[in-house]
């Protein structure tokens, strides 16, 4: 009994001390000291009303708190419209909370217990009201983020054409984004909510958490901000697409979606999410775990949406045309990974971080897969119709231009192929070249004329080297490769010459051996040889007139080589012929072409026009 009385005394002393504005125990101790001095008079001293009950002081406080609080709880006007009102309300709530805390140890007493129940009731009403006010404050301040003109002017995106995201924003303050930044600078700080509002929210959050209503507070916060975020994302043009939908979409549409995604991901990771993080930290200042939890709640969905799309791209078809866009997605994730890890750094976000890395790796796989598909395409390219005239094959053109374009992203590709199992980028490129060449060789066999095979190989080979030379591709393949390849082209050249012109040249060989026929037999032989020469020569020129050599330099080389081969020999032969006795009365009549004529005919080769097909003279 005595103990009970002491406790009550202590509670009263504390209560008085607090009423006087002192929260520490020293004043309470002093008061206690005074009480004990009063001794007998104490029992008669009425500190409250004429109420001897132990719960009297509590009841008294509660009565006044009830008066103060109820007017606010019941009011239809927003409490936070007036800072005096809100302060007063918060003060009352604070007092209520601490009163309950102080008196709870004595809940054993029935009357005190009853008071505490009423106090709890009042607390609950206050909390409901605070929750409503919290929600109103959050909704009032939060119009969704707009990519208005001033923003987009200062954000750099790869494509400068913006879709129509420029609705005229409301002129509420929260929408004005301070944008005095240079281009390429994402360091825009968005005040998601005005500073005053954020402070108010924090004040409310403090009370709700200390009253044990933190979860409700967090719940309201997350719902509101999540909605905001979702709206912002959709204004960025981001749609919710299933993986299957992305697979079925026509490629052009996918490209558009990727562009939007790149933009949205940049905005999200550089602006929106950091802004949400800041807001969380400020509203739940002092309660880091509530802040972490709420942040995760707010941003999780949008993050998943972004990652899902990237995943859908990574899972998609390996058609080579997709390379450049898939690279975009890969590079975006790669470049933003530091931001990702910074903003999702807390304990709840580990899963998300892992997901992001997994998906990024998958994109790398996809890129490697695209190159594999390119290999397959090359391998499978059928050798059906021969290119007329042995010219450049479309596949050569396609592959070389493709690789040149791909090599604009050498750095990224090297990263991708490093992570791959075996080959580096150089090896991959060399392999593709090998496949291409093999395929071309197979194609060349369609031409029945071996000389034409060689011309075909020459043309394509030359094109390949040209495209490799002044380009990243060249440094990837290396000087050695280029040297070897040039040598191959030269080899084809000599093959060509050998298989077509040697025969012609061979006719002109004059035997100087003693056993060679002379006299009339010799003369006849020369005549026959000349006729044969013309026959071969004409035939060869006719055949080769429709052949094509696209590269001017190569064309010249070929012609020069033929000329060098034939002209001197022909010249000699003609002289021999003319000076040979026994030929006939007028040997000139048998000479169809002068040396110059031969030269001209040769010069007309490889135009692909059949110009030298017709006989002259």
């Amino acid at each position: 009994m005595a103990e009970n009385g002491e406790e009550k005394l202590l509670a009263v002393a504390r209560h008085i001390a607090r009423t006087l504005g002192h929260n520490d125990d020293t004043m309470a101790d002093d008061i206690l000291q005074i009480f004990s001095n009063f001794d007998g008079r104490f029992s008669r001293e009425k500190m409250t009303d004429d109420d001897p009950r132990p719960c009297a002081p509590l009841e008294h406080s509660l009565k006044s708190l009830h008066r103060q609080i109820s007017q606010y709880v019941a009011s239809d006007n927003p409490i936070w419209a007036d800072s005096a009102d809100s302060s007063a309300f918060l003060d009352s709530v604070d007092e209520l909370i601490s009163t309950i805390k102080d008196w709870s140890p004595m809940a054993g007493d029935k009357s005190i217990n009853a008071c505490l129940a009423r106090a709890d009731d009042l607390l609950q009403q206050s909390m409901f009201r605070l929750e409503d006010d919290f929600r109103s404050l959050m909704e009032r301040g939060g119009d969704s983020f707009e990519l208005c003109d001033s923003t987009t002017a200062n954000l750099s995106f790869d494509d400068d054409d913006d879709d129509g995201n420029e609705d005229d924003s409301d002129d509420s303050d929260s929408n004005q984004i301070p944008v005095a930044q240079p281009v390429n600078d994402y360091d825009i700080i968005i005040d998601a909510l005005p500073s005053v509002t954020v402070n108010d929210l924090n004040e409310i959050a403090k009370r709700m958490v200390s009253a044990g209503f933190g979860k409700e507070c967090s719940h309201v916060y997350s719902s509101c901000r999540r909605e905001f975020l979702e709206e912002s994302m959709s204004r960025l043009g981001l749609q919710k697409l299933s993986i299957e939908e992305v697979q079925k979409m026509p490629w052009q549409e996918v490209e558009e979606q990727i562009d939007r995604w790149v933009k949205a991901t940049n905005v999200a990771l550089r602006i929106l999410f950091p802004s949400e993080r800041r807001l969380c930290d400020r509203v739940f200042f002092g309660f880091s775990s509530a802040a972490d939890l709420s942040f995760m709640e707010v941003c999780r969905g949008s993050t998943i949406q972004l990652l899902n799309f990237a995943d859908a791209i990574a899972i998609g078809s390996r058609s080579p045309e997709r390379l450049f866009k898939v690279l975009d997605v890969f590079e975006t994730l790669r470049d933003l990974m530091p931001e990702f890890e910074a903003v999702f750094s807390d304990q709840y976000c580990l899963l998300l971080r892992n997901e992001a890395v997994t998906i990024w790796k998958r994109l790398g796989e996809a890129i490697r897969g695209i190159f594999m598909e390119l290999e397959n395409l090359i391998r499978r390219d059928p050798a059906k119709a021969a290119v007329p005239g042995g010219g450049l094959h479309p596949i050569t053109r396609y592959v070389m231009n493709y690789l040149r374009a791909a090599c604009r992203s050498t750095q990224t590709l090297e990263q991708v192929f490093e992570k791959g199992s075996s080959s580096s980028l150089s090896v991959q490129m060399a392999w593709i070249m090998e496949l291409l060449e093999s395929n071309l060789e197979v194609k060349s066999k369609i031409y029945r004329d071996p000389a034409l095979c060689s011309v075909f190989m020459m043309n394509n080979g030359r094109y390949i080297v040209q495209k490799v030379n002044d380009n990243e591709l060249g440094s990837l393949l290396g000087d050695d490769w280029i040297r070897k390849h040039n040598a191959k082209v030269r080899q084809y050249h000599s093959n060509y010459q050998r298989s077509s012109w040697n025969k012609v040249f061979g006719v002109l060989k004059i035997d100087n051996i003693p056993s060679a026929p002379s006299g009339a037999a010799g003369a006849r032989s020369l005549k026959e040889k000349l006729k044969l020469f013309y026959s071969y020569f004409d035939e060869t020129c006719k055949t080769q007139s429709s052949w094509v050599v696209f590269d001017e330099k190569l064309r010249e080389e070929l012609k020069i080589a033929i000329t060098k081969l034939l002209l001197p020999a022909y010249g000699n032969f003609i002289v021999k012929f003319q000076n040979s006795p026994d030929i006939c009365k007028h040997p000139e009549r048998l000479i169809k072409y002068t040396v110059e004529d031969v030269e001209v005919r040769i010069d007309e080769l490889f135009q692909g026009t059949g110009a030298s097909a017709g006989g002259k003279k």
Partner: protein
Amino acid sequence: MPATTDSSAAASFTNIGRSILSLRRDQVHSIEGMNMQHHDADTELESFQKRVTDRFLDLSSSSDELLTLSWVQKLLQSFLISQDEFRQILFRNKSQLHKPPMDRLIADYFERSVKALDVCNAIRDGIEQIRQWQKLIEIVLIALDNKKLIGEGHFRRAKKAMVDLAISMLDEKESGSALANRNRSFGRNNVRDNLHKSLGHFRSLSWSVSRSWSAARQLQAIGNNLNAPRSHEIMATNGLANLVFTMSFVLLFVMWALVAAIPCQDRGLQVHFSMSRQFSWAAPMLMLHERIMEESKKRDRRNASGLLREIYQIEKSTRLMNELLDSAQFPITEEKEGEVRQRVQELSMVFESIKGGLNPLEGQVREVFHKIVRSRTEGLDSLGKGNGPD
């Protein structure tokens, strides 16, 4: 001729198919080692089927476990293992994959598995939905904390959370009126009472699929044209057709069961599930299917957002709790208080069972997703390589 094995499906078509196969094998000039290959393939296919059967028998063994969180985890685990074995067998038979009709069968399977990916994503969203309910239940538990005296304020607080929970568990279409009621009872009359905006707070948490996506349609698509392979297909593929068919069915069933259990968009369960009983796993699978369908038709489960046992428990305890909260008059009697504490206890148990199980489940669903992707990528890559000379 190797002895035909003892598959429990007696006189099964598959056995006959295999006998014919072994006949042919003896008569064919075999390239060195091919005989060995065929024999191995045969055995490994048989044991694959057997293991699948065993797993499904195990899943259908205890009736009170059905559709609990732990059962679903067991189901996913058996999928993961089957998928792994499937992948290994395919790998060992790489050379067979690009020959028709195997190439088409494999490509079909991979098509189906892409559709399954979307189901996995939708299920993940569904798990998040359940997590939201868990959070609301937590508030109720805090409000009615056993240590203190329960007052009217606590009741009101619990009720508010209960109403939020009820709205969250409802179909979106029905939420509108429930919300209006809620605002009337617990909030003030907001001048700017924008119902649509309030609805947003409880909007379905679907991040991975568009509004028009339908789980029912997706399941039907997965099961589309899924027919038991004909004998000529089985022979042409050395039995691998059966492997693909089995795995396809396992995929379909697992996805179907997930949709049955977990809330997701447009949860229709009417999928054509006729499996020919020639396969030993067909019987246990069909039985599970029947029992789950039965569950879905029960009066108090017909409109459930998901058939997960724990969801049922949430629905039950919250219903009882609601009744209690509604009927309470203050000051409450001791008897009433006792009832409340009992309900809190029940609800607390449900809460604990969910809390422990959701994260691992989500992790598993993600694993299923990743495995499917990996297997598909490998498979498609090897199909691609198979063409043309090398």
